[in-house]
Structure formats: structure tokens, C-alpha cells
């Protein structure tokens, strides 16, 4: 499948919002989303959730002969995979640019920084060394895969335990986990990537871009740092021109973020260690709360709500004069008017329902193009159904009245072929009925709001978790 393109209005809106220092989910410019780390039952398996972005990391090991030019060092192998369930644009087996970039970045971040001590992975020099393999699977893409992947990678490596080995002369004994406790890897430091997205030729920068923000950014700067403020990797892509003090500012921000992240990782690792030692239950199944529907869950969004109150009169006074032609507006509540008739939302067979001469449709409908501005002119009474012979006035049209031509002259291409065989009488009747149809029609299949809201608290799909906080 192709990825959904970014429309012009989204791009414009996002850039305007960024200029006003506002983000879609209410974060500040330098704020990260919530990070959640959970471990599996095996050592070396973890899932990191950065907002809605999820990455799974898994470490495994194997005894292999070493590389000929490095006989005393173990081997590290990194692999990042973009699962098709992460985003509609990811296809299996397709080597995209993003995949290559991720692989290279993770390798540079974890291998070149020498965070894992490879000398300690040697068992018999020149013959047997441990090969440590790290697989990162991206499960959901909501922006900033790089950070999530780097956190998952280093957490999985820290969490992993390899089998204990003892060498006596010529004999090498590899102990099973039952015989001797497995041994953790020797990790010197924890490099973590932090991404900065740049907009408007480097004027604005955001930390931890979400998926929409990534679509409209000019370029991204990734800095991998550890808590000792040592930069392990730095990469700028997208062709943006960065000034020296911008890069310095980013590295200062990175230092702060990495310190927080490292603390979080340590706490998570300690918690898991404690639970395992005490004999409690651990694993992914335990980190999911029981008796709760978690598929439909949303973190509360802290949206700034200051200074948004405006009096209705102010709005009217400042608003542009309304356009010329109006249909009869329907007054729902003071301050709300509906212009334009509802359009029938019908699933299933349209032809069938229109062929029958059904009874009058009653009830108001929700116009799908809904304008809620108070109407100054023509405050007419609440009239909800057009009469048969009155022309329906459209606000887009230049003319006051739309003249309907003779039925035979109308283009029939928009009706399904079956309708062409109708005779004149039925056409006329149907045209009249259609003009009624344009007016408030109940959608044929809709979910009853009352039922949805209150009834189902333990069913499979119908909701109920606190979401919104402002």
C-alpha cells in the first residue's frame, strides 16, 4: 500500500501551529512523549513505547568462530526490521531508504561507540567467541522510530543474559541456565539517540517529532549521547543548513534528555530484576492490566486552553459578512445554525430505497458540511423540510435559483445503469422524491449514541477509558 500523502492544508496548519509554538498533542517544543518499557519472560526481550511508536528488541547469542582479523573479539550483529503492521507504507522485503538509514544509525550508535565489551565475549581465542545478535522490530510507526529503536536496543542488551562458560585447559564447558545462572553482558555505557526536527529552514526545532510533524519537516538532526555527555554519533539528514550554535544548543538539550532517559531505563531494569528475584510473575502478559480494555486507550493531551473565550458578539462583529445566498437556516441552539440540507448517509442498496414510494422522512439530520456561524441576515423560523416545488438554493451557486432542466436532458451518467430504464413518470416522481431526499434524511445505518455511551462496559469494543484532560 502507499503511504497516505500529506495534504496542503495539513502542512500549512502544522507549520502555522509550529510558528505559534503549538504542537498537535499539546507538548512543548522540547518535550518527549511518554516512554514505557516492558520486558518479556526471556532475558533480552523488551518492548519500548514512545507515545504510540512501539519497537520490540530481542537479543540472542551463539558460539561461532571469530573473524580472522579479530581473533579475540566477539561479534555483534544488528538488524532493524520495519514490520508492515507499523505503517501502511512499509512493505515486506522492500529495502527502503528509511530502513537503510535506521540500520546504519543503530550500528554506528551501538557498535562504533563500543558500548558492549567485545573482548569479554571471547571464549577460546581464535576458535570460539560469542556472537550477539540484536533484532529490532518496529511494531507501530507514530514518528521518531530512531529514538525508540535505540532505547529498545540498549535496554535489550542490558537486560540480556548469556550462558555461563568455564574454560579448563583444553576443555570448554557451557552451562545451561539450570546449572549456573546466566551472566549479563559487559556494557560500558548506554548511548541513546535523540532526534531534532527542523522547520522553516532551521528556524524552529522540535524534539521527538510525531508522524505528522515528520512529514512536514525540513530535516532531522540525530545526536547519540550517553549520560557522561559523550557524543557517540551525530547525523544530520534532509539537507538542512545548521549553524554552529544550533548544533551546540541541540547537544545541550540532548544531555538533559539522555540523563532522564538513562534514569528511567535503570529503574525499569531494577524493577524487573527485583520481580524476578522475588519469584513474582514477569513478562509482557503481566505488564498489561487485567480486566481492562487497553486496545482503546489514549493518553491525556495537555492542550493549552488559555485565552480562547470570546464573546459571541465579538465574533459576529469581527466576522466577514456572510455570503450572498443562503438556504433556510435551521436554528438548533442559540448561536448555532445549520445551512444546507443533510445528505443521506445510507449503506446498502440505494436503488432499492428510492424505488419505493416511501413515506415522508422525518427528523432532522446532521449536515455533513456544517457551518455554525450565527446568521445575521435572514433569521427565519426553524423550517426543516423543503416543500416539493421550491428550488433548493445552494450557497456556492452564483444564481439565486437553480433551474432544473427537463428530466431527459439531465446527464444520466451519475446514476447507476439500472436507473436508465425507468419511464418518464417514475423519473418525475423520483426527482421529486429526491429533492425531498436531499432534505433531512436519517442515515440508514448509524450507531445509536445513547446505546453506545452507556451500555457496554465489558464488551469487546465500546470504549470507556478516561482520555481528555485540559
Amino acid at each position, binding site marked *: 500500500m502507499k503511504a497516505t500523502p500529506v495534504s496542503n*492544508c495539513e502542512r500549512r496548519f502544522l507549520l502555522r501551529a509550529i510558528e505559534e509554538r503549538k504542537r498537535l498533542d499539546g507538548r512543548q517544543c522540547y518535550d518527549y512523549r511518554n516512554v514505557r518499557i516492558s520486558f518479556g519472560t526471556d532475558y533480552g526481550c523488551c518492548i519500548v513505547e514512545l507515545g504510540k511508536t512501539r519497537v520490540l528488541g530481542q537479543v540472542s547469542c551463539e558460539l561461532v568462530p571469530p573473524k580472522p582479523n579479530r581473533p579475540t573479539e566477539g561479534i555483534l550483529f544488528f538488524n532493524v526490521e520495519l514490520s508492515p503492521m507499523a505503517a501502511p507504507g512499509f512493505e515486506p522485503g522492500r529495502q527502503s531508504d528509511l530502513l537503510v538509514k535506521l540500520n546504519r544509525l543503530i550500528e554506528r550508535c551501538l557498535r562504533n561507540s563500543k558500548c558492549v565489551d567485545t573482548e569479554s565475549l571471547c571464549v577460546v581465542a581464535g576458535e570460539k567467541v560469542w556472537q550477539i545478535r540484536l533484532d529490532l522490530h518496529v511494531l507501530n510507526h507514530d514518528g521518531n522510530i530512531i529514538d525508540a529503536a535505540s532505547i529498545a536496543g540498549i535496554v535489550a542488551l542490558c537486560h540480556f543474559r548469556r550462558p555461563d562458560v568455564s574454560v579448563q585447559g583444553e576443555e570448554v564447558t557451557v552451562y545451561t541456565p539450570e546449572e549456573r545462572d546466566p551472566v549479563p553482558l559487559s556494557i560500558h555505557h548506554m548511548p541513546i539517540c535523540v532526534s531534532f526536527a527542523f522547520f522553516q529552514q532551521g528556524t524552529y526545532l522540535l524534539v521527538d517529532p510525531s508522524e505528522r510533524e515528520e512529514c512536514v519537516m525540513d530535516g532531522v538532526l540525530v545526536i547519540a549521547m550517553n549520560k557522561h555527555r559523550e557524543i557517540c554519533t551525530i547525523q544530520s539528514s534532509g539537507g538542512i543548513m545548521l549553524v554552529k550554535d544550533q548544533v551546540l544548543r541541540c547537544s545541550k538539550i540532548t544531555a538533559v534528555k539522555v540523563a532522564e532517559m538513562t534514569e528511567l531505563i535503570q529503574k525499569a531494569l531494577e524493577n524487573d530484576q527485583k520481580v524476578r528475584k522475588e519469584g513474582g510473575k514477569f513478562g509482557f502478559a503481566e505488564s498489561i492490566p487485567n480486566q481492562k480494555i487497553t486496545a482503546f486507550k489514549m493518553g491525556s493531551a495537555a492542550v493549552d486552553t488559555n485565552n480562547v473565550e470570546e464573546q459571541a458578539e465579538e465574533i459576529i462583529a469581527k466576522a466577514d459578512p456572510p455570503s450572498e445566498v443562503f438556504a433556510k437556516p435551521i436554528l438548533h441552539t442559540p448561536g448555532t445554525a445549520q445551512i444546507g440540507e443533510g*445528505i443521506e448517509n445510507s449503506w446498502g442498496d440505494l436503488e432499492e430505497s428510492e424505488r419505493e414510494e416511501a413515506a415522508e422522512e422525518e427528523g432532522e439530520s446532521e449536515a455533513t458540511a456544517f457551518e455554525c456561524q450565527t446568521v445575521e441576515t435572514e433569521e427565519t423560523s426553524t423550517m426543516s423540510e423543503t416543500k416539493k416545488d421550491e428550488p433548493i438554493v445552494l450557497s*456556492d451557486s452564483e444564481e439565486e435559483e437553480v433551474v432544473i432542466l427537463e428530466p431527459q436532458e439531465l446527464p444520466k451518467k451519475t446514476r447507476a445503469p439500472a436507473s436508465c430504464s425507468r419511464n418518464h413518470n417514475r423519473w418525475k416522481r423520483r426527482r421529486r422524491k429526491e429533492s425531498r431526499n436531499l432534505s433531512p434524511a436519517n442515515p440508514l445505518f448509524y450507531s445509536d*449514541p445513547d446505546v453506545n455511551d452507556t451500555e457496554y462496559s465489558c*464488551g469487546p469494543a465500546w470504549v470507556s477509558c478516561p*482520555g*481528555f484532560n485540559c
Partner: protein
Amino acid sequence: MAAGRAEAEACVGQVVLPGDVLLLPARTDEERLRLGAGAGGRLLCGPGLRRCAAGLLVTKCGLLRHRQAGGAAAGGAYWVDSQQKRYVPVKGDYVIGIVTAKAGDVFKLDVGGSEQASLSYLAFEGTTKRNRPNVQVGDLIYGRFLVANKDMEPEMVCIDGNGRSSGMGIIGQDGFLFKVSLGLIRKLLAPKCEIIQELSQLYPFELVLGMNGRIWIKAKTVQQTLIIVNILEACEYMTAEQRKQALAKLSGN
């Protein structure tokens, strides 16, 4: 495992699973012969259901709903209320599409389905071969499906049977587009939807709902737009009381 068989009327409002067979009341010959205008004739088989020999076969999991005979659903209608995020084009649905390409006389739109929909430039109100619509790549279009089945690429039009646009066409340049699940859209499109009414008490805004899960919002300022976007996204996960509380807090601010 044998599929569950049950009377259709008994299951209304309950969860049904794919493979369940719903038995319909057997019709007598008299009823079948009586085809009056308007008198209950055909039973409408809505989304998530298929006809089979015994009655209705459920193809999606969800809640079974029923609508009495009369009005548009002459003879009654059954359908399954299911929840999903991935849209499958259906003929007659009103959707918001994003223009991805202009190929000669035809625009290609992304509607969230597996194929891109095509839209002819003549399918707008008041356009002729000389007078073409002003559509750029990346614009938003609100239209309805003329052709939508699994064998062909879907086709959209922005014009109704009489040649008028009736609200369809190019959506304005400002505003914001975001995506929600299909169930929330149907909830918002229900008549007398409380959510829309309560929101309209807050600030004035323009709203276009596409059945493919896309909503376009335009309010006075960026902040108001963001607030409405967040409320609508959260409405999926909030009960009515929580929503009223949130809105009360907002209007109290």
C-alpha cells in the same frame, strides 16, 4: 465448531460473531404476494451481513442492530455495528479524498482504501471542457463514490444526480484534517448527535466528516482548532459524562 443459529430478532443489540446464522421469520405466501407501494417488501441487509439460504450470515463481529419497517428501510433493516479504522470504499459514501496526481482528464485521489480513486474534472458543478476546476495536488475534495467494488478502481464524483454540487467539491485551504475510526464518524453523523451540539456551544467552527474516517475542521484560531481536534479524537474513548466534564472545564476557562 458449529456456527450459532439464532433468531434474528432475539439477537438485536447483542454481540454477533462471523459465522453466526440469523434465522428470519418465515414469510407466508400471502405476504410475499402483497407488494404494495410502501408496504413492507424487502428486508434490507446492511453492512456485516449477507444473505444465505437459512437467513442472514454474519460476516463481521459487532452488535446487531435492527430498524423497523417504514421510511427508507422499507420492510425493516438489519446491520452489524462494527468498529474498524481501515476504510473499504462503498458506493454512495461521502468521503474526503486527497489529490495525489493529475493525469490528463482525471484526478487521482487517496481515500484511505487499497486503490486510489479517480475523479473526472467534469464531475464538478459548473465545469466544462473550457472551464476547468482549480485543483492542485494536495488539495482536499469532498465527494461521493459512484463506483466502488472489489474488482475495479473506485470512482468518485462531486456532483449529484441532478448536476448540482450539494455541498461537495474542493474543501477550503485552511483548517486541519485528521483521522479517526469509522465508528466515531458514524456516531457523529447520527441525527441529533450530542457531541456536535455540545461542541458548537464552545466555539464556532466548520466541520466536514468523511465516511473514510477523515474529519476536516476549521476554527478561528490555531488553538481552537487544536482543542476541537483533541476533543474529537478523545471522544472515542470518553463516556458522555467525561466528555461533558471536559467541555464544562473548557467553557469555564
